[in-house]
């Protein structure tokens, strides 16, 4: 097609410098396609197709066996009326509320501490705080379960020495969720911390000098210079952390399996159980779509927020 075009076309617009437009649109499209094809095949086949397929399944009574019947919005009605789903959503929200502010505030506070140029052992601290990020959730779950074991757990024993009775945390309906959320904070805050650290280093020092000249103390510099300049980074980290919280699964699967009394059963645990254990595939697909839409909405909030911020800056 490109050869044909270049022979039949009489007029060709002058090529701009850089040579990028030297050849025709057809030739460029063919080249681009060659570069894009492998990735497009993978994403089309394993992301987009399953996504459309999940949408179709969510309107059926699919169970992995036999013919699936179209049952309209039945699964979605179940999603929005089933008390188990309501509990799973409530648990996920509770987990998000426990996890997100804790992880983000810890990461920010530590980044602020480490940003001081006078601090000794900076690179040691930076490495130490980031190490949990390379440890899997599953292993983190084993280690913390052992540490808080009611009988032989070291942490339990030390806290008892300080007069704090924890009891059997993972069997405690009130404490199990904070425990699994804490493991996620431990594993992920180091990543947010590194992002905050980079954000802090991007703030021009001239701003601090100007604030100092105006007589601003450390607290005022933090409030009026650091935090406003970090708002983009903050928005990114917040949304990232919330999305991670919505998808919580690994450490819960290992530590509590959703218990005690379903108190740590999250939405993804529910999808896994209904889809792969009970084989209620139609229902699990509908629930997946609700999760998908919740995630998309959160990302949209991020885009709107970013867009507004960028407009403010320009």
């Amino acid at each position, binding site marked *: 097609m490109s050869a044909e075009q270049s022979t039949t076309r009489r007029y060709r617009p002058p090529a701009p410098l850089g040579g990028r437009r030297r050849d025709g649109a057809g030739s460029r499209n063919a080249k681009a396609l060659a570069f*894009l094809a492998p990735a497009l095949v*993978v994403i089309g086949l394993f992301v987009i197709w399953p996504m459309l397929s999940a949408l179709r399944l969510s309107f059926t009574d699919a169970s992995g066996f036999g013919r699936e019947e179209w049952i309209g919005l039945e699964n979605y009605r179940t999603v929005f009326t089933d008390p188990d789903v309501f509990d799973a959503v409530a648990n996920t929200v509770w987990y998000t509320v426990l996890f997100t502010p804790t992880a983000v505030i810890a990461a920010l506070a530590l980044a602020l501490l480490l940003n001081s140029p*006078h601090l000794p052992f900076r690179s040691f601290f930076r490495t130490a705080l980031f190490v949990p990020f390379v*440890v899997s959730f599953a292993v983190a779950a084993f280690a913390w379960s052992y540490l808080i074991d009611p009988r032989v757990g070291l942490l339990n024993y030390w806290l008892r020495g300080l007069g704090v009775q924890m009891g059997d945390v993972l069997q405690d309906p009130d404490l199990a969720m904070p425990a699994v959320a804490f493991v996620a904070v431990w594993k992920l805050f180091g990543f947010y911390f590194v992002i905050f650290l980079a954000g802090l280093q991007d703030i021009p020092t001239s701003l601090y000098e100007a604030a100092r000249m105006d007589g601003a103390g450390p607290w005022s510099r933090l409030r009026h210079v650091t935090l406003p300049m970090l708002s983009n980074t903050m928005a990114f980290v917040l949304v990232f952390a919330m999305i991670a919280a919505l998808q919580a699964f690994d450490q819960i*699967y290992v530590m509590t399996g959703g218990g005690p009394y379903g108190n740590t059963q999250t939405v993804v645990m529910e999808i*896994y159980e209904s889809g792969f254990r009970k084989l209620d595939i139609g229902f699990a697909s509908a629930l997946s779509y609700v999760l998908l839409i919740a*995630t998309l909405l959160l990302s949209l909030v991020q885009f709107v927020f970013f867009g507004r911020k960028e407009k403010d800056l320009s």
Partner: protein
Amino acid sequence: MSVAEKSRRRLRELRPSTVLATLALLAVSAIVLLPIAVIVLTAFKPVAEVNAYPPSLLPDAWTLDNLRQITADLPFARLIANSFAFAGGVTAFALVFDSLAAYALARIDFTGRRVLLVVIIATLMIPFQATLIPLYQLVSDLGWVNTYAALIAPRAADAFGIFFLRQFFLGLPRDLDAAARIDGASEFRVFRSIVLPNAVPALLTLGLFTFVNNWNDLLWPLVFTTKAEMGTITSGLTLLTGPSGIVPHGVMMAGSLIAILPLVVAFLFVQRRFIENIATTGLK
């Protein structure tokens, strides 16, 4: 400046706030590193000590019993090999496919480029759990359950990597490829000999990130493998817990140690560069 002068200067800089910050960071680091210390130390503790009350952090006697036990309970060499094949395979494919696609999106002015970019960013936001069931059905229809293909192929390219590399490629100066093009270099040559060598930090960061995430993933191998010997080290360890398998803590910690060792050691080697690259190459 003499050494004495330098240290005097240092001391003068040690204001109370710096001392407090250092102490706070030491305390936080101790808590953060505690589980890792517990994994390492418990792995070498005799059973009697692991279950002793009061518990202690350091072992009195050191033993290899736990490591021996875990290698008897699980096909460990196989699981580690599977983890390397899975995480390494995904990383290798994703780096090649993502960088090719990212090059087209960053450097070739083709029809529908903007639309494609929007579609890729949109798929970035799809939680993989949402597509897991039809994906499983597809993989099962292809006859891939319990194969490396099932673990690797669906992740051989991903929207995040493409987007990340595109951003990086956009930032590379175009002067070099313009010169190469005038010399008659093909598009692929420009990609391979000019753009890729200049993108090594970004490729390294993305590669490590992809490797770590896949090595550590639990749900993915749990879903696509049903035979114990096709699982990864991460999913294999979970077979030992739960109602069916109550395994002594010492043995679990020995397994955990083996599971985290490759990543922690690799991380300590490249940590400086890795952290800096995450921070600066646009993972924010």
